[in-house]
């Protein structure tokens, strides 16, 4: 997964070097993006919500993002984001790469379970792809993108001690699940 993220960043850097001649120095500006995404993979289809805040300069964007990822196991991604736009027309193609951690968020059903206690451990999170940025006005834009996304989720389920037995129950009373999800992601959003 780390290799994939690194490859995506390298890909963007290569594109940057080929368009170096088109550099147009601009001042640093704060930008935000909010997207809704459709995730499709072996487990099925699910929804992704994410928002990213950061700064942009010379067609580069860097920032930090978070959101909600409902694919397989509900998680909250926390990630660093880098984006490269190619050109400055009204409709501009771009490439992006996000990398960080996925934090598990137990569902109400898991919390209500009387026999097991669930604890989610952070796992890796990344996504990368390409898209188009359709500028509207006042620096706002509509974003359309498609890419590949992966996340790891590690869950520890501990068998609760028997009620009325206040001492620790002997033996290992837990099990761990390590999930690796790989999905295609299509996002629609806006930049502000």
């Amino acid at each position, binding site marked *: 997964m780390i290799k994939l993220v690194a490859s995506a960043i390298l890909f963007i850097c290569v594109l940057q070097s080929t368009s170096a001649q088109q550099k147009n120095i601009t001042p640093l500006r704060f930008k935000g993006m909010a997207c809704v995404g459709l995730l*499709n*993979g*072996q*487990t099925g289809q699910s929804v992704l919500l994410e928002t990213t805040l950061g700064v942009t300069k010379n067609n580069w964007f860097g920032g930090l993002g978070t959101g909600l990822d409902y694919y*397989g196991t509900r998680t909250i991604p926390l990630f660093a984001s880098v984006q490269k736009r190619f050109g400055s*027309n*009204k*409709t*501009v*193609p771009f490439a992006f790469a996000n990398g960080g951690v996925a934090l598990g968020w137990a569902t109400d059903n898991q919390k209500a*379970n009387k026999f*097991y*206690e669930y604890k989610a451990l952070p796992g890796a999170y990344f996504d990368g*792809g*390409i*898209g*188009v940025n*359709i500028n509207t006005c006042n620096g706002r834009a509509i974003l*359309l*993108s*498609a*890419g*590949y996304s992966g996340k790891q989720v590690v869950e520890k*389920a*501990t*068998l*609760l*001690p*028997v*009620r*009325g*037995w*206040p*001492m*620790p*129950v*002997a*033996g*290992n*009373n*837990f*099990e*761990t*699940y*390590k*999930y*690796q*999800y*790989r*999905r*295609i992601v*299509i996002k629609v959003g806006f930049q502000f």
Partner: protein
Amino acid sequence: MKKTTITTTTFVAILLGTLLSGCLKDSCYRTFTMYKPVYKARAEVRANIKNNPSINVSEAGKMFVLGNYIFLNEIDKGIHVIDNSNPAAPINKYFINIPGNVDVAVNGNILYADMYSDLVALDISDPNNIRLSNVVENVFSQRQFAGGFVADQTMMIVDWEVKDTTIDCSNNWVRRPSVMFMDARSFSGASMAAPTLGVGGSMARFALLNQYLYTVTESAINVFDVTQPVTPILKNTLQIGWGIETIYPFKNNLFIGSNTGMFIFNTVNAEAPQQQSMFSHATVCDPVIADDQYAYVTLRSGTTCRGVINQLDVINITNLQRPTLVRSYAFKNPHGLSKDGNLLFICDGTEGLKVFDAANVNNIQPLKTLTGFESFDVIAANKIAIVSAKDGLYQFSYADVNNIRLVSKVSIIKK
């Protein structure tokens, strides 16, 4: 330009999706501990219920103090017999192998213990020659294994082989199936209590009162007639609702701690105790002890106990039909408790053992906090407080309340 860019991007996206479609396989790995039962013939198990050479304490359970001896449960394995003639140097003398045992109570020279669903009676008149006197079969029917495991009924499980395993669960996306562990650790719980003959902890699930042995399960009270101590007879089973945790006998009453409140039963009709009242509280765990005027209930939160309350409730029980709260005191995570005279001992989890002057229940005064261990239960008698803790069995002398001091520790040695 715009149309071309969108078309190109769409084409690349489709291409990307097609190329990566082989990379869309999700995976799942499940790591868990498998338990394989080790069986022995029932006759062989029964023949081995006697003084055997001592073993290290590794999974300490509940305890019972009788005279100079401490009977300390080794969870699901049996009972350590500890000679405590000299509290400064307790001697772990014997181990009684009782598979499935978690509770103990003593009636004169007879020790009662659970052995999975059976009740065993041991003659302890000579602690150096403890013998099995009787087995009453299938009286704890609630004792079941977790995860739907069914043991071979013709044999008895004496141990478990343990193995960690990781399997690919990609092909079984039913998450958290109902059978998670072959963890056959006993359902139930139990323990001791018989202040007139010995001293048990506040987390007891066995209680002796007026020639009757009362045991509580998750939802019921079992009443055994022990007029003939060697031959306990199950007389009655009363369903009293779910969440029952502990039982504490005092005078002719039974104080029963449940996770929703404290029940008071009288034993005028010993074989059919009658509920006199209930003192409700939020859903938490609540060991209880009592004296002539007051009941002391510790309420604690935690994974099993749920809830968020951690406190001591002092309840006026002068009128057993109408118990009333006197005052609550905040604690970190209070577990077992014990009282000797005006001294109140409370195990406060990771904050150790706390000692109070409870002469005035409206203003209980802290005297000493003994730290450095995670305490679960305490028995205070004869100026010695015996504390069951995560890392061992501690003994503190309170002969001088201004100088409560550690006199010994039997360490727990994990396997």
